[in-house]
């Protein structure tokens, strides 16, 4: 590590450390009933988590001594290894809670290849798209014309998408909604690198429409969708292509809305369907389907403005929130630290995400920039889904809160993910590629 050209962004490290240690405090609060008197016993969850924090910090420190070209140079081998793991887990992995997404080494040592897959795919996307010549739609990349609109996708653009979709398909086969969505967030990186934002708009629309069909009669929705499409077509009448696109979109989304019954009843699995129904309030079953979310909301709601005080939360201390120290850890924050503590944590996360994006944009290296966006996208998906689930804004999806939830392999993966970027960022002035 040559000091001369190293500029470590301490703000990212401070935010990381704050989240990790605040997280550990809350894991301790949520699992203190396991205590057998020995504070640092590995038989307790918080004891093991502390060990993992040590391991992760050591790894983070180690990464800072790596040659920053390592990641760029080894992106493809790492990606290949990840594909091997993702394929392997489908064959030899053990099902945990219905998802075949874990290599179980021992009871307390499990490895989820999708964590590694996200890191590897972020790297390989950065590597591939980091080539100076890369563009989704360069000259000669026009595939066909949609009326007056050229539809462009370059060869390298196609390969870039393939690098994303191959691991995505493998993760989808694991039948783990959380991992799939977290991985899918990497698609945001394509948008930053010039892929059309229409895809994201359409994906968002699909989710919004799916949830609204549960709430409103679907013929009303179809009428609204067609109305908006007609209005857009009218406004965009100067381009026949845009007009046609608006009309086509309207028709396709109407069909989608009409078919949501089929989607909800046949494509979604029962627990996924139930979770959506609970979210929109169509199912009231506080002791059944709704139980986890309800208990989480009760714990958070009872925290009030300033919280009940550290280790004073009755819901946390007496384990009323199932899976609290893993997926529902945010409820411990809400109860014991109140609105102020929960807001502080949210601000820390938003601050870290924004800092990563801003830092990414100042990279001279395209590789570093694209990788930074990959990191931010993955974290963003995790944070949105996890906290959203804990406060009842998002259906229940099992996914950890980054660096905060109990779980060694998750903490370790996020540490590698983030510190790789911190390392790359620290060399921003040295790397010219």
């Amino acid at each position, binding site marked *: 590590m040559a000091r001369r050209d190293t500029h470590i962004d301490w703000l990212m490290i401070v935010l990381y450390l704050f989240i990790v240690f605040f997280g550990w405090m809350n894991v301790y609060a949520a699992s203190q009933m396991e205590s057998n008197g020995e504070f640092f016993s590995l038989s307790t969850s918080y004891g093991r988590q502390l060990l993992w924090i040590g391991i992760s910090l050591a790894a983070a420190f180690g990464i800072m001594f790596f040659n920053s070209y390592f990641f760029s140079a080894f992106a493809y081998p790492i990606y290949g290894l990840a594909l091997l793991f993702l394929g392997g887990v489908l064959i030899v992995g053990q099902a945990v809670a219905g998802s075949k997404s874990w290599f179980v080494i021992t009871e307390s040592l499990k490895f989820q290849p999708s964590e590694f897959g996200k890191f590897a795919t972020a790297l390989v996307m950065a590597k591939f798209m980091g080539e100076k010549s890369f563009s989704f739609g360069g000259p000669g990349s026009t595939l066909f014309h949609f009326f007056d609109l050229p539809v462009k996708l370059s060869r390298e653009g196609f390969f870039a998408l393939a690098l994303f979709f191959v691991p995505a398909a493998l993760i989808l086969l694991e039948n783990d909604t959380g991992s799939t969505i977290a991985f899918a967030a990497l698609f945001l990186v394509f948008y930053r690198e010039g892929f059309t934002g229409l895809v994201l708009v359409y994906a968002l629309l699909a989710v919004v429409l799916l949830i609204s069909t549960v709430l409103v009669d679907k013929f009303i929705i179809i009428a609204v969708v067609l109305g908006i499409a007609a209005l857009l077509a009218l406004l965009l009448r100067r381009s026949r292509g845009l007009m046609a696109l608006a009309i086509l979109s309207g028709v396709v989304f109407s069909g989608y809305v009409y078919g949501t019954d089929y989607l909800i009843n046949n494509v979604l699995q029962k627990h996924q369907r139930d979770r959506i129904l609970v979210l929109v309030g169509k199912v009231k079953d506080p002791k059944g389907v709704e139980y986890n979310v309800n208990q989480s909301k009760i714990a958070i709601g009872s925290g009030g403005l300033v919280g009940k005080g550290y280790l004073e939360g009755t*819901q946390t201390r*007496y*384990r009323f929130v199932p899976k609290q120290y893993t997926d529902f850890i945010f409820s411990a924050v809400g109860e014991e630290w109140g609105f102020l503590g*929960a807001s502080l944590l949210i601000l820390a996360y938003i601050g870290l995400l924004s800092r990563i994006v801003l830092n990414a944009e100042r990279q001279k290296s395209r590789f570093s920039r694209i990788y930074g966006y990959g990191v931010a996208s993955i974290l963003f998906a995790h944070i949105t889904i996890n906290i959203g689930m804990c406060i*009842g804004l998002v259906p229940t999806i099992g996914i950890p809160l980054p660096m905060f939830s109990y779980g060694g392999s998750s903490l370790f993966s996020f540490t590698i993910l983030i510190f790789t970027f911190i390392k790359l960022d620290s060399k921003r002035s040295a790397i010219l590629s």
Partner: protein
Amino acid sequence: MNESENKKWIFIGMFAFVGIAFLAKLSVLQIFDPTYKQIANANAIRKLTQYPARGYILDRNGEVLVYNEVSYDLMVVPAELGAPLDTMALCGLADIDIADFRKNLQNIQDQVKARKLGKSTPSPVVKQMSKLEVATLEERMYEFPAFFLQPRILRRYPKPIAANILGYISEVDDKKLKEDPYYRPGDYIGNTGIEKSYEEVLRGKKGVKNIFVDNKGNPHGSYMNGQYDTASVAGQNLTSTLDILIQEYGEKLMAHKKGAIVAIEPESGEILAMVTAPSYDPNLLVGRGIRKNYGKLVMDHNLPLFNRAIMDGYPPGSTFKLLNAAIGLQLGVLTPATRYPCGGGFRVGGHVVGCHSHPGPPDLLFSIQTSCNSYYCAAFRDIVNHGRNTEEGYITWRKYITAFGLGTNFPDSDIPNVKSGLVPQTTFYDKWYGRGKWKPTTIISLGIGQGELKVNALQLANMTAALANGGWWITPHLGKKVDNESIRLFKRNETGINPEYIGIVKEGMQRVMTGGTGRGAQIPGVTSGGKTGTAQNPHGEDHSVFVCFAPADKPKIAVAVLVENAGFGATWAGPIASLMIEKYLFREVKRPDLEKRIMEGVLIKPDPASPTIKPSQL
């Protein structure tokens, strides 16, 4: 800054949007909606009821009639029923009926499934096992983690007596739960007898302890250092008026007989003994055996669960003549010198009320002494005719009769469920014969205590106490003291008869004992007054009745004895009353032969399947 670089603001905008959405939702959950705080408390704080010890019941001399023993309920926490349960082993350790156990456990699990019962709420599977029964199980409870033993209070009776008078406690029923918010399902409440009438004194006051519980319902220390807890207050001890010595003695005398004895201290109205026979061991209606034993007792054709001392009763027979004599004197219809002819009977139309042979015609004292039927038929006729008309005359007569407590259920007494019996109103006869169409001679049997009259042993004993007092009585009762505080709730009642006239009747009663029908019931060493009676029984052998008080000059005890199907009053009821008084006044009985004859006399056919008391058990 190119177009791509501007996209960072779209990303940061997304982050900010999500952050703001979270803060908005959090502010609703944590600041604006108060319901979550209440639900959180309901989750984590459990109110534990602290059950106070129930008060003891003592006899008038402080001897224990009812005390408490710890019993155990085997509780189950359905949420913790995980691994296969070794039902055989569990039941074997405490001698639990396996079929019952399976049925109860299934029932609890069904309720949990139907969400009527919390998964973590402990529920009783087997109730009220004694310390002895759970001794082996207790040591091995750790083998059955879903179960625990909950101590509760069990009533115990050192002597198997006074079952119907003391009453029993049982789980409170739905009706009471609705009426009285003090009770919660599963609480115990006094069901009959003293347990019922002194429920509020004996039960004490429940306390509440607020504790933290976890998601499985395990306790974790007190809430706010017990700031909101209330301590339970132990029930107060009740000293009853019963004298355990004669209560037990009376039950022995009444063994193998049907009937009742009531003994009252005249000057206080305190009931010294209330015996109903046949009876049962009160320890039978306690704990696990209650259902089985209750069933057997209910089926017994001799009705051991029935308190014969306070039931609707029988005609009082000749004991009633005492009141007619007193009323006649009070109204001026009779004087001590009044004589009525007796030619072996009293003629009404073609009908004759027979009389036994005695020298005649008798005067008032001699009429009591010999129990002359003709005399009291004539006297009753004249008493009723003393009014301006039959109706008015009858009403006046009835007023005096009820002033002695007959035909009333002593509403201010502490004895629950006393029946009024029957001293007919005029409307009764109006309905029967038509208004104005009945005359004293129509209802002449009232003169000698027969006919429609119905009285019970309590009323007869009270009547005797009123005579012994010289014309007044205190409402008969069973409660004497609550802890050390005397109960002074019971009022003095006047009969309206001049004490002088009562004195004449008492004189007659003494003659009954010295030279009349009660000679066989004389008590050695003390003068007494009494009267025999025989209640006509259309269904079989007549009932034997005897009333008595002693000592004659300063009465300490008044007794009424009623023995069913025992014939003439002097044969069974008289000696029983006599022995009771002797036992009470002298604390011992010096007539072993008489005692033996009475105790061994069998006048009923016992039910072999019923757990009623054999004399040897007393």
